[in-house]
């Protein structure tokens, strides 16, 4: 009895204290799955860029159009080899020092020496000339401004680096500055007070990394969080029914792909790869696992990637009979155990995937069942994400289910260049190359004129659709939950910037 009284007293105390408000400004509570491992821009730069602590020279709007950020304007020389980025006048770092061309050049030089995307650009020299950062290239590279949007290229104050060039503090130039950081889970921000774009509507932001999707859903549902990123499909349905929450969903340029080893006897014929594609019931996967039928990947790029999604392209379809016919044409015959055989070799392969994205392993087991229908025996193996590149390198990968992002730079040319170049790459083709595609990509790299690019992009997509060096399975979505307390939330499918500075408390 006394214990019951104690419990009741404790419960009342908790209830009372949670009702009591505080005099401090209420922070905007943001929850997402991203942990802040180390503060090196190549590691966690995306957190600081999305939460508007640090800025890049160039940014992108939600449609993918490049827009000025720390660089007011930029230009390229006639020969395409010298790029000039004019630093915005009046931009200031959080330590009060002005953002200079020297500081920007120093940050970019660090990025270029690191492991980020800038290492893929043929840069020969980065220099500061007056108000301009000047990048000199070894050969023309039209996508350079798009590469600068990547979070690895955020511009930090000179005081952020120690003598060896390592980042020890994040001193950026965005509307918010770091108040406190408790790695790997918590980041508290406050208005910097001197952002060139004006003061943010809400002065204090608190970011908490919550790895578990279920916990994130409960954070949203309980009203504890104002803004929650990346919701599991199973939670979205339930949260949609909650009148206090607004669910925003955007298709993002991320595609789940079946990477196949086109050098192996199982996938060396294009008929075999097409047969695999026909055997897959994408509609079933999107309906049962992703709970969003719009995510069926009928081609590599989703509609959100303007200029890269070809709407009149014949879609990838589910047709098991066509799959069986193509496999028979490629010389595979049904064995006594119901598994295909060719020259005494059973069609038995291992499908490797990883659990960084929780939906990949269940999709892999669905593919296992669907491929069994046409006589292909698949073993599913779930490992670490690094096993895909490492087994690509030693040539032992047969099939891998991967999730590939096409907006690492907002121009997918960058990813195509990497994935479908000669000999393929870790997250791209394996044992497959196509001279026409390479010529197209080379031309795209050197061309910035949109009208000139359009037919090249279209042809590249057609080749990938026909040859299927990687078999698209589903596109991806970003689900964001906003509490009714806040207004002005925008979904950025490119995940460059979450626009926190323009979120307001609802009246």
């Amino acid at each position, binding site marked *: 009895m006394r214990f019951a009284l104690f419990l009741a007293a404790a419960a009342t105390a908790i*209830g009372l204290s949670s009702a009591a408000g505080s005099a401090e400004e209420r922070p905007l509570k943001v929850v997402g799955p991203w942990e802040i491992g180390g503060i090196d821009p190549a590691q966690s730069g995306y957190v600081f860029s999305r939460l508007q602590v640090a800025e890049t020279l160039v940014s992108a709007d939600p449609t993918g159009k490049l827009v000025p950020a720390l660089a007011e304007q930029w230009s390229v020389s006639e020969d395409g080899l010298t790029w000039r980025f004019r630093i915005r006048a009046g931009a200031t770092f959080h330590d009060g020092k002005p953002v200079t061309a020297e500081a920007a050049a120093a940050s970019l030089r660090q990025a270029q020496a690191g492991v980020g995307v800038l290492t893929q650009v043929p840069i020969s020299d980065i220099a500061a000339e007056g108000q301009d950062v000047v990048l000199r290239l070894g050969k023309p590279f039209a996508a350079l401004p798009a590469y600068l949007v990547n979070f690895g290229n955020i511009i930090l104050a000179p005081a952020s680096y120690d003598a060896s060039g390592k980042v020890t503090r994040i001193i950026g130039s965005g509307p918010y500055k770091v108040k406190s950081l408790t790695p790997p889970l918590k980041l508290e921000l406050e208005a910097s007070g001197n952002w060139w774009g004006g003061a943010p509507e809400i002065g204090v932001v608190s970011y908490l990394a919550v790895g578990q999707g279920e916990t994130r859903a409960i954070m949203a549902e309980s009203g504890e969080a104002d803004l929650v990123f990346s919701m599991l499909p199973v939670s979205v349905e339930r949260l949609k029914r909650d009148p206090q929450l607004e669910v925003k969903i955007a298709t993002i340029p991320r595609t789940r792909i079946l990477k196949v080893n086109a050098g192996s006897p199982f996938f060396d014929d294009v008929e075999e790869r097409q047969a695999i594609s026909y055997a897959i019931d994408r509609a079933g996967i999107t309906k049962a696992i992703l709970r969003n039928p719009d995510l069926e990947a009928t081609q590599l790029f989703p509609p959100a990637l303007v200029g890269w999604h070809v709407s009149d392209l014949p879609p990838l379809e589910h047709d098991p009979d066509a799959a069986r016919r193509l496999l028979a044409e490629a010389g595979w015959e049904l064995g006594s155990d119901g598994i295909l055989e060719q020259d005494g070799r059973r069609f038995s392969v291992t499908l490797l995937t990883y659990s960084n994205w929780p939906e990949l392993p269940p999709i892999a087991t669905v593919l296992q069942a669907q491929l069994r229908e046409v006589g292909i025996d698949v073993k599913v193996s779930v490992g670490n994400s690094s096993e895909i590149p490492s087994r690509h390198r030693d040539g032992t990968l047969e099939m891998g289910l991967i999730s590939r992002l096409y907006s690492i730079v907002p121009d997918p040319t960058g990813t195509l260049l990497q994935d479908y170049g000669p000999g393929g790459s870790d997250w791209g083709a394996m044992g497959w190359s196509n001279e026409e595609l390479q010529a197209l990509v080379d031309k795209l790299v050197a061309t910035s004129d949109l009208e000139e690019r359009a037919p090249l992009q279209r042809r590249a997509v057609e080749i990938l659709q026909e040859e299927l060096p990687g078999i698209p399975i589903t596109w991806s979505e970003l689900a964001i939950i906003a509490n009714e307390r806040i207004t002005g939330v925008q979904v950025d499918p490119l995940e460059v910037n979450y626009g926190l500075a323009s979120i307001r408390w609802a009246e």
Partner: protein
Amino acid sequence: MRRFLLARLAQAGVVAVVVGTLCFVLMRVLPGDAAMRIAAGRYGPDAAIAEAAEKVRQELGLDQPWPVQFLEWLGNLLRFDLGHSLVTGAPVIEELKVQLGASLWLAAAALLLSLLIGPAVGIVSGLRPNGWADRLGLAGSVTLRALPPFVLGLILMLVFSIWLGWLPPAGFGSWRELILPSLTLALGLAAVSSRVTREAIATVAKAPYFAFARHKGLPEAVVVRRHGLRNAAIPVVSYLGLQAIYLVEGVVVVETIFAYPGIGHALVHAIVERDIPMVQGTALAMGLIFVAVTAGVDAASAWLDPRLRRAQ
């Protein structure tokens, strides 16, 4: 007393070397390329992992022969230097300070709550074996122990965060965020400690000295306080030492679902990311805590039970 402390200190030294060596060996025999794992852990699965792995290999000297790496680690340990995390680059000791501190708060709160719940329920049950309180206690104990911590955690979140709206479901920084994770752990602990207490009390209650105390006319409360509690506490306290094991496995799960930055959370990430110094550091800290807990339990038992002291 001095011999006791010296023996424990020696034990701690042995534990440190054994745990460190085991971690080192186990992390080496795990399949997969360490540089690739570390690169994937640092830069995420969207990065060009293979290119990054080459830089990681050079930066960390992973291509050195393993005896050199092991001796280096051992030498550093003797100087109380646990090295730097391979993933975040921060000194392991700094990371441990934050994470171990957070976990100790969580474990202490859980232990305290479990001591408030478990023995209280156990005493009520044990005094009237097979009474309604005992049966209710048994049912509750079986249910709570059978629920895995992540299910229990989610249930508590549903009840206290969504239905009642009293407590935040996750996070850290104040005592309000500490309640749900520590309650999740505490209920699991109390589920068993209440039964241990119940058995101990029931045994004591049947003992002749207990009957004698009653017969000589002492009020029930005085009987329990003077003759019951200390005798019944002996098995309960020894059992608390064992519960430290439950706490260690519990914090790993509980910290993950409640987004709590503790040592369990850190250990899981360090293993996945092949961050050897962090694994060694965290395992070492856990091992030493274990030594401290058992030493504490032994000391408490000796204080409670004079027979143990005489036997020494």
